[in-house]
């Protein structure tokens, strides 16, 4: 028991929670945008990988850190465009297309890596985003190291929560996106483009996902490794349901998962002698499933999610 309290009292635990949550925040927001428009994007796992690879590679080639983030976002947007074209005007199965995009994007990332660096055994390191010490606040005991010594990308993630929330609830564009995910006929009847809205939302959402991937190689670590995304995309797909497609709840869900994950790592060190570590590795996923069971029973899915819509057919 005392070990658990020690974990919670350590600012490192809280800092780790936020660090683990950051890529998930990008990912959940991206998935949220796509699904609010009525498109499930299972390409997320591959888009994370592609973003991680593209951002890091661009930075290594001299584009600068922010240049790398931009390259990652563009790469994500392009894979999003592919998924959107297949599922929106062509109306293919969103599941099949999404999984296809994941396989393709992951392979393209690995292929690009091997093409650029055929002979290396370990990837070259870049100088990652440094922690930004918020003046004064970062000096605070406990709160300083827990909350105010994060990289710019973490602050960007938080900013994106505000942006997505504002766009979805306060702007005509968000209104149209919410409507197109509920009843595309309503949007069409009002003279708006169903295809345009959906393709745009999927591209923007995919760009966000890719930035989440770039965080891994450009802030959390300093290089690209095979398999480093490790299911984070799938977690986002679950979290978006947990969040009932709302940005602030998405942030909360990502932080909750981050906390579970940070906690289990520390439990492993505390109890690793007696209990096999795999048991702890499972806990965030088991807790996520429980949280999902509780939240998803009331989930109010966007009504047109997964349903293809064709112009001129009603």
């Amino acid at each position, binding site marked *: 028991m005392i070990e658990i309290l020690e974990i919670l009292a350590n600012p490192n635990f809280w800092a780790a929670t936020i660090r683990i949550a950051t890529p998930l925040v990008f990912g959940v927001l991206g998935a949220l945008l796509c699904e609010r428009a009525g498109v499930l994007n299972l390409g997320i796992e591959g888009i994370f990988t592609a973003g991680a690879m593209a951002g890091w590679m661009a930075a290594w080639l001299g584009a600068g850190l922010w240049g790398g983030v931009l390259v990652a976002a563009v790469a994500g947007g392009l894979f999003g465009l592919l998924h959107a074209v297949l599922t929106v005007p062509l109306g293919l199965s969103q599941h099949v297309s999404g999984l296809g995009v994941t396989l393709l994007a992951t392979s393209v990332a690995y292929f690009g890596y091997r093409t650029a660096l055929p002979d290396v055994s370990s990837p070259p390191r870049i100088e990652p985003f440094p922690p930004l010490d918020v003046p004064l606040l970062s000096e605070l005991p406990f709160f300083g190291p827990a909350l105010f010594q994060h990289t710019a990308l973490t602050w960007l993630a938080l900013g994106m929560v505000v942006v997505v929330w504002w766009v979805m609830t306060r702007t005509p564009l968000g209104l149209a996106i919410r409507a197109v*995910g509920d009843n595309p*006929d309503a949007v069409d009847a*009002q003279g708006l483009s169903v295809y345009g809205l959906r393709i745009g939302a999927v591209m923007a959402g995919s760009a966000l996902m890719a930035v989440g991937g770039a965080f891994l190689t450009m802030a959390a670590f300093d290089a690209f490794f095979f398999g480093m995304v490790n299911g984070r995309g799938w977690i986002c797909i679950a979290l978006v349901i947990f969040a009932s497609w709302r940005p602030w709840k998405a942030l909360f869900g990502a932080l909750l998962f981050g906390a579970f994950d940070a906690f289990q790592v520390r439990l492993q060190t505390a109890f690793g002698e007696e209990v096999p570590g795999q048991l702890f590795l499972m806990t965030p996923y088991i807790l996520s499933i429980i949280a999902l069971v509780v939240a998803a029973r009331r989930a*109010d899915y*966007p009504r047109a999610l997964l349903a293809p819509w064709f112009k001129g057919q009603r």
Partner: protein
Amino acid sequence: MSTEPSAPVVLRMTGLTKRFGTVLANDGVDLDLRRGEVLALLGENGAGKTTLMNMLFGHYLPDAGEVAVADQAGRLIPLAPGDPEAALEAGVGMVHQHFTLALNLTALDNIVLGAEPLWRLRRDKVRLRRRVDQIMEDSGLRVPLGTLVSDLSVGERQRVEILKALYRDVRVLVLDEPTAVLTPQEAEGLFATVRQMAERGLAVIFISHKLPEVLAFSDRIAVLRHGRKMGEMPTAEADQAAIARLMMGAESETEERAPIAPGAPVLDLVNVDLQGPDARRSLHRISVTVHRNEIVGVAGVSGNGQAALAALLSGLAAPDRGEVWVDGTRVARFDPASFIARGVGRIPEDRHHEGVVGTMSVAENLVLEDLGSPEVARWGILRGAAIRQRADAAIADYDVRGPGPEAPARLLSGGNLQKLILARVFGHAPRLILANQPTRGLDIGAAHAVARRLLEARGRGAGVVLISEDLDEILTLSDRILVIHDGRIVEAPSRNRARIGLMMAGEAAA
């Protein structure tokens, strides 16, 4: 109330033609609409009314012909085809039969959706709301603006649809079968509002297949049949029989309901409660008796518990309280098989999904309920020849037209699908028949066939529960009329339409 013929033309359709595969849905339709006029577009189901309007509004691309709309100066400008945005720009608004509302948005958001530029940092909700309030004031259409559309009643949703059009400053408003979902009283209210808006210069096209309301409320009538305009006339000079002839090609026949004394009870519901997933799909303390040789009509506006009643009588739902007796024995097990075994025949509401398996052949669909009988399957193996023979007989007997017994059932038209279901149901000589919206969406010929079969079954000694939203159908076919409202069932004291309409809206029978 009729407009002078000199009022300027605001909308002109010339030679509109649309083909779906081999079907000619519209064939060279010409139509003019004048300012301040209410034009009724009349025709049977499948006559091409909705297709015509969808071309007008840009949902469909016409194969030939064009639509022109008057601009502010009164000049007729051709409309870009296949572009709803262009139609909206030109001042054409449409209220679809199936509402095009986003249920997850408020009434206000649905009304203003798409009317503001998308790329704005914030929405001027105060200004939008003031404008909508003004329109509600002017038109007399009131809805709670801040409420989610999913929480609005059907009548309110329709008002949201009309407000949506008015918000776009429409000069031409198309109402596609607006009264299909309304109680007679709600319909009256709608007519009054539309009339008032027309007097201020709005031109209205009003689509309907109900002759009485068209005669009561339009200035001019245009009749469509088989995609062609059969004629048009001022309503004041219209003669009901002549219009009916234009619509149907012949005098309409009505079914003769020969008087028969009802026999022993075949269905008894005693104080049945059924808690559905929501209030609209629940039943509260209903008691109903249906006798042999009797058709009992259940009238009501959709969503008042009809689905629960149908589920109960097909064995798909078990009551929470109360007793169900079929043919003298109390039902203990509620599953479809035991209801079929007790001689209950079911004509489901959604014939495409609940009535047939679309990918299976006509012949297979015909024997779906007899897979256990030795005539159809022996030792667990289907008897192809016997099934085929049965299908041929049923197809001839029930006049099921289509590509033949081996073709998948989904290729049949709605009317022929319904005949297939009738053949299956009546093949068992059922003692109790549940007919849920049996003629909805059918053309006149198929609807008559269904009505005739139901009356035949009644003559043979079956009891029939006829659930329908079409009051005329209920009045024609039923020996007794029940009204369902909010999950409660009351017997109508008389066959007076107005009386029954009030009860459908929830007024006590007294």
